[in-house]
Every structure is written in structure tokens, then in C-alpha cells.
């Protein structure tokens, strides 16, 4: 395995969490009513394809220490543009959606990078304005997509558990994971989130990367919206903030830090899969919707508490306190022998 893929420390946590979830899901029939089979795995991957790319888009901006609130709107915008312009050519519709995302990301990125503004107000403005644009484009109604061949093709099973749509989403995750693992770009993205001033002083082209990250984020989000709209054969203006909540939860579960500098696409993918498995497990056991909310919220709380820096410090100081009782480790032998202060 390449050295740079050997995750250590906190970066390993999303993979371990996913492993726990996968094992628990496989053992589910032994402890609850309901069965788990390939159809359930296919459902998990369909969920992954549906919202995973939005989590990836948001996660990228979180790694550079920003937060793109507008992903919810670009997700809807991408779907709406694809449905309205991709009637004759789905590729053209998707391309227009991606181009719109690049433009939105460029404008937001330039304002944030060049004017040194916080991403929260800028992308909040973007979120509201784009939502308005989606309502204008859709005339406040769902818009159907007429090319059912495309819809059926995207949902056609591949190797039992995959679909064309889930494979496309997995492919995008892997490409970005490759960029993070095998090029200096990934390191520069994390460096910007870790300490922007230090990155700038070191020669990292901070503004370009910030703008590029927002462009990538919006383009991925738009493309994800287009994929979803094609696969459902319609686009709706009515999903508002639900994708944002899911994406944020998945990114945090995936090891991305809100303060920036930590996280990678594979970890975010693990976070998305964890949530998808959880939702599927709750569906298999026939749990009510409120259980999903309670369990998801509780899980997020646990993960963020486990990752909290103060918890680690508390653990270390507790261990140090044990050392103190056993004889202070930093105490020099001679001083210990003479009894300390005069």
C-alpha cells in the first residue's frame, strides 16, 4: 500500500466507524426482525449516490476552513438546469449544470478569497439567491424529465448492488481521493485549513486554491443534483436545507474538522456510508422517522465528543495524574531523593 494512504491517528477513525457500522448491519438480523441482503446493500449505495457528492462538495470547503452553505441551492440548481436543458442530450444538460456550478463557485470564491470575507455570509447570500433562481426557473413547481431511457439507464443494476449512478459517484470520490493522496494539491488544501497565514507565507497559492475549492464544490454539487434529477425523472425546488444537514453530518462523521485542516475524500465517503447504513438499518427494522433523527443526532454528538481536543487532553492529564501518584515522571532523581524545595 502506498505510504501516503496509510492513515494514522484521527484520520483512521472514519474507517473504523464504517467497519463497526458494516459489521453491526451484517449482524442485524440476529438481534432484530428483518433481513439483510444484497437489496439492502444496493439501497445503501443508492443513498450514497444521492447525497454523497453533496457531502463531498461541502467537505472540501470545510477542509480549507470554510463552510459552503450554498451547496443545498446548487444541488437544486444543477438538477433543475439539467432537466430543463438536457431533454435532447443528457450530457449537455449535465455540462450546463456543471458550468453553472463553476460560475457560482468562482463568484463566491473570488469574493471570499480576494476580499478576505467569511464564507458564511457570502454563501448564505448565495444560498438564498440561488434558491430564488431555482424557483424562477421552475415556476415554483417540480419539472419532469422526459428521457426515460436515461433514467432507467442510471438506475440499471450493475454487478447486483451497484447502479450506473452509484458507480459515477464512487468514481468521483476516488478521483478526488487520488488528488489528495498522490498530488501536492491535497496537502496544500489541508495546509490552508490548518493555518492560512502560514500557508500563504510558505508560498502556497492560497487565493487560487480557495477559489478552485469553491468552484469544485459548487460544480460537484450541481452535478450531483443533475444525476439525482435524471435518475428520478424530475427536479424539484423544494428540498431546501435537508441536503446541507445530511452533508454536514456525513462530513463530520468522515473526520472533517469544522476548524479546517483535517479530512479527505475517502473519510467523507466513509461518513456518507455510515449514515446510509444507519438509515437502511432503521428502515429494515421498521423504525419510525423520529428514531432516525434521534439516532443520527446522538451518533453525531458521540463522534464530535470523541474527536474533541479537550477530551484527549483530559485523558492525557488523567494518565499524568496517575503518574503523579506513582511519583512525578518529570522529577529528577536527585531532587526526588532530597525532597524538593528548600
Amino acid at each position, binding site marked *: 500500500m502506498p505510504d501516503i494512504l496509510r492513515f494514522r491517528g484521527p484520520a483512521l477513525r472514519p474507517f473504523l466507524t464504517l467497519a463497526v457500522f458494516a459489521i453491526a448491519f451484517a449482524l442485524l438480523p440476529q438481534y432484530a426482525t428483518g433481513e439483510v441482503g444484497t437489496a439492502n446493500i444496493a439501497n445503501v449505495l443508492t443513498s450514497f449516490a444521492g447525497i454523497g457528492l453533496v457531502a463531498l462538495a461541502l467537505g472540501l470547503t470545510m477542509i480549507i476552513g470554510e463552510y459552503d452553505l450554498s451547496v443545498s441551492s446548487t444541488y437544486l440548481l444543477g438538477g433543475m438546469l439539467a432537466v430543463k436543458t438536457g431533454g435532447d442530450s443528457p450530457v449537455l444538460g449535465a455540462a450546463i449544470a456543471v458550468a453553472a456550478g463553476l460560475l457560482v463557485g468562482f463568484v463566491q470564491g473570488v469574493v471570499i478569497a480576494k476580499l478576505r470575507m467569511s464564507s458564511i455570509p457570502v454563501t448564505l447570500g448565495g444560498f438564498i439567491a440561488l434558491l430564488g433562481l431555482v424557483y424562477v426557473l421552475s415556476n415554483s413547481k417540480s419539472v419532469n424529465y422526459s428521457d426515460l431511457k436515461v433514467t432507467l439507464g442510471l438506475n440499471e443494476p450493475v454487478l447486483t448492488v451497484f447502479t450506473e449512478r452509484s458507480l459515477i459517484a464512487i468514481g468521483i470520490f476516488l478521483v478526488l481521493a487520488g488528488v489528495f493522496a498522490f498530488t501536492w494539491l491535497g*496537502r496544500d488544501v489541508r495546509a490552508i485549513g490548518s493555518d492560512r497565514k502560514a500557508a500563504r507565507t510558505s508560498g502556497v497559492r492560497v487565493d487560487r486554491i480557495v477559489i478552485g475549492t469553491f468552484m469544485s464544490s459548487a460544480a460537484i454539487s450541481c452535478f450531483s443534483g443533475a444525476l439525482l434529477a435524471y435518475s428520478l425523472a424530475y427536479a424539484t425546488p423544494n428540498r431546501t436545507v435537508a441536503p446541507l444537514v445530511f452533508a454536514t453530518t456525513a462530513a463530520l462523521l468522515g473526520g472533517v474538522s469544522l476548524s479546517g485542516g483535517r479530512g479527505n475524500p475517502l473519510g467523507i465517503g466513509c461518513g456518507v456510508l455510515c449514515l446510509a447504513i444507519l438509515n437502511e438499518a432503521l428502515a429494515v427494522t421498521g423504525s419510525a422517522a423520529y428514531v432516525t433523527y434521534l439516532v443520527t443526532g446522538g451518533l453525531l454528538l458521540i463522534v464530535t465528543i470523541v474527536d474533541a481536543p479537550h477530551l484527549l487532553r483530559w485523558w492525557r492529564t488523567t494518565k499524568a*495524574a496517575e503518574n503523579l501518584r506513582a511519583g*512525578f515522571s518529570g522529577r529528577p532523581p536527585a531532587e526526588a531523593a532530597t525532597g524538593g524545595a528548600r
Partner: protein
Amino acid sequence: MTENATAQPAAGTQPLLSVRHVSKTYGAVRALDDASLELASGEILGLCGHNGAGKSTLVKILTGQVHPDGGEIAMRDAPVELRDPLDAQSKGLAIVDQELALAPDLSVEENLFLGNFDLSLLRRPGAVRRRARDLLSRIGLAVDPRSPLEKLSIGERQLIEIARLVGRDARVLILDEPTATLSENEIERVFAVVRELVREGRSTIFVSHRLDEVLDLCDRVTVLRDGRIVASRSTADIAHRQELIKMMIGRELPPPQRSEAAGVAVGAGAAIAGLRVPPAVADFSLNVEGGQIVGLTGQIGSGTSQVLRALAGLEPDARGGFTLDGGAVRLGAPAAALRAGVAFASNDRKGEGLFLEKTVEDNLVATRLDSLSRLGFIRGGALRETARRLVDFVKVDGDRIGDTVEHFSGGNQQKIFLGRCLDREDVKLLLLDEPTRGVDVAGRAEIHQLIRQAALAGVAVLFASTELDEILDLSDRVVTMFGGRIVASLAREETNAALISADMTMSHERKEVAL
């Protein structure tokens, strides 16, 4: 009168860097006035001057952060234009700032090559690891290149930054106050690396207020005063730091005056019994009487800072007994400490002290808003009057009371910071962590005087410093810590620098004395 005011290296050596008649003006302030200096290959040049003397401006010009109004900079006699920090680095001029340009979430090797354009887009881990190991071995640092940077000590991080600049073939390394946060061992290590790099033909400009270190490390020292270079001498010709101080401030510094009330008990003061702050402090007991100034010293990591932070309620895991004028004070609760009359000034005035983007007035009254309010409404007249009185008290230019603090020199910022804790009737214990870090000798004398005035008013003062001169100048009692415990607690008259140094390091000689 200036001494050899065009600062030149020894005759016959070709200058690596030449600064010729460089000037810079900010508004009405002439920050740098016709400054000229030369630096030879393999030379270490000390750059000294009080706060506002022009050192920072000169350093910023040399690193491309600021553009001069006039004059010329040349490398090996070829004029160069330094457009920005990266451009300066590409021309061989690089700075190691007090605030390191490293990303804590990245590994050592990722930091070593951060922003390096020589590398291809695709990462080649094997080649990078080899280059990283080579760089680390050149500076004598035995750490795994894959280690997360955040696991390294501050001193090791500074060496990583130096290694990175060496990797970029920096010919002139500018070290700006590099030792302020380092322990004695770490300082020695950094100095050894600098000397080794100089032997390779690189040159170093060492900017510091720590004059003994300047005299120890540098071949030559250039002194700036009021934006002009006023002296440049070989350090071999400077017998004592007092000579250097005289060059810096243009006069003899008066000997430190001890407050008449110093050592005179006024109130019961603070009693600390069995204080523990895992893992830094194992056992700490001390009484500080009202009106007494106790200096707490030790190497970085000895626990001095944690003692002060614990008493200010900022260490949640602190345990032990703490009373102030007889009343028990709960540890781990900053609000309880404040109510009991504890005032704390952190060693990080920018991060934990000043509101840099607020005015002098806003900063000075920030801790007094309760007493300046009635029914929750701030009394504007009383606020302005108090701010005006405090500006005079801390000796900051009263005309600049409306200026934002970020535009003041380090010394003035520190005085404004301390002004928030001083001259308050509700303060019974004043805790100061490195009260004069980054402050020049003149500013330091003024700050010491403010602290003595607080003691004179009956406040118990406990301050921590790693600078022995400050400990000896200011303290009535010197408490030395090592490994989280007090190893010596002596009246000022009973101790001296050699004794304290030995206690700080628990060196063999001192232990014999102790036994």
C-alpha cells in the same frame, strides 16, 4: 553621533547583501531613514534597537513584505527588487518569524516542502522522504519525517522552519526574535544550527531584544534608533550589554529602582498550598504577601506558566488550596478568580489579551465596564475620563487614545495590556506571565515601574519570567521551578544569576550547593 553608521562587514570581504540608503515613511512617521548596511557571506549580524526604532520595517523590506520609498537592495552587488515574500525567498532572503509559518495539521515532511514549486504535481513519497531526511540531518534533528508537526516542541518546529528555508537555498536567514518562546536547551540547539549554516557560507541577521544572546551569537551588531542606523560594531569590541543598551537608547539606562514599599507587607496576600496542575505542576506551595513581588522562574516546561494560569482559574484540572486575603478561591473558575481580586496578564498578549482591532480606550477600560456602568448602561463621561487617566498612567501617547492597538509597537501594546490590570482597587493579586516579552530595554524599565507601583499600592504580585535580568531586577523573592516543583525559594539578596541558572537546570554544581 553615529559610530560607523554605514554598517559594513570586515574589510576585504565581498558583501552578500547590501542595503543602500533605504527609507520608508508611514504617514508622518519616518520609520526608516537612509539606512545602509552590508552583510558578508558567513556572517551573523545582530540587529538591535528599541521598539519603534525601525527594525521591523527593515526586516519587512528585506523580506518583501513592505516596499521602500527610496534606496536600493543588492545581492552580491546586483540590485534586486523584492516584490513579495516569495520573491524575496527566491532571491535568497528568508525569515524565521516568531510566529512560525507551519501548518500544525500536516506532517513534518509536508511542512518541509509546503509551497515548494520545485516538486512535480505528483507526489513521489520515496524521493520526498529522502530529501526530508537529508534536510533534517543537516540541522541535526532526529524526527520521523512522517510525524505530525503538532507533536513537536516549539524549538523543534523552529528548526523545521529553518530546514525548510535551507531546502529553498536561503542565503540570508533573518531570525526575528527566535528565542522568545524557547527553553535554554532549545536556544542552544538553534544557535548550534545557525553556526553550522554560517560555516556553509550562509549569512544570518539575528533580531532580538535579548542582548546577551546577541553578544553570544553574532559577529557584528548594528543598532537602529529612531529609524536611523546609529552604530555598527564587532561584538568582540563590546565588553558588556550595558554598552549595547547605551547605543540603543543614546544614554545610560538608570539602575533599576526598588520600590520603597517593596517587601513591606500590606495585606495578607495569597496563600497557595499543594497546587497540582497535571501534568505540568506536581506540587506548588507559596505565600505572596500584599506589597510583595515574587518572581517565578524556570525553563520552559518547568510549570511556571501553568501555576499562574491555575491561579487565574484557567486550568480546569488544577487542584489544591488557594486563599486570597484569607478567603478561599475556587480553582478552575476564571470568574471566581476575578471576583476574588485576581488579575492575570497572559504571555500571549495578542491571542489572550488585547483586542487588536479596538482602540486604546476600548482596551484600557475593557476590564472596568462594571464599575463604569449604572443599571447596565455605560457612563460615557466616566469611561473617557478613566481611559484618559490610564493612558497617562501607562505612559502611552494620549493623542493616540482613539487609534487601534494593532498599530502600536510591541512595548506600547504590552503597556496597554498591563494597564487593564493595573490601578484597580479590586485587584489583590496580580499575575503576570512574561510581562516584558518582546519589549525593548526602555519599555521594560517603564513596565517594571508600573509593576512596582502596583506593589506599592499593596497588591501581591506574582510574575513568571525566563529572563534572569528581569527576575533579579524586579523580585523581592525568587522562586525557581524545575519539573513541576519548587526547587528554590530565596530572598533577592540571597541569590544571583549563577545560582538561579543552576537551579533552573538542576545542574550538578547547584545540586552540590543544595545538598
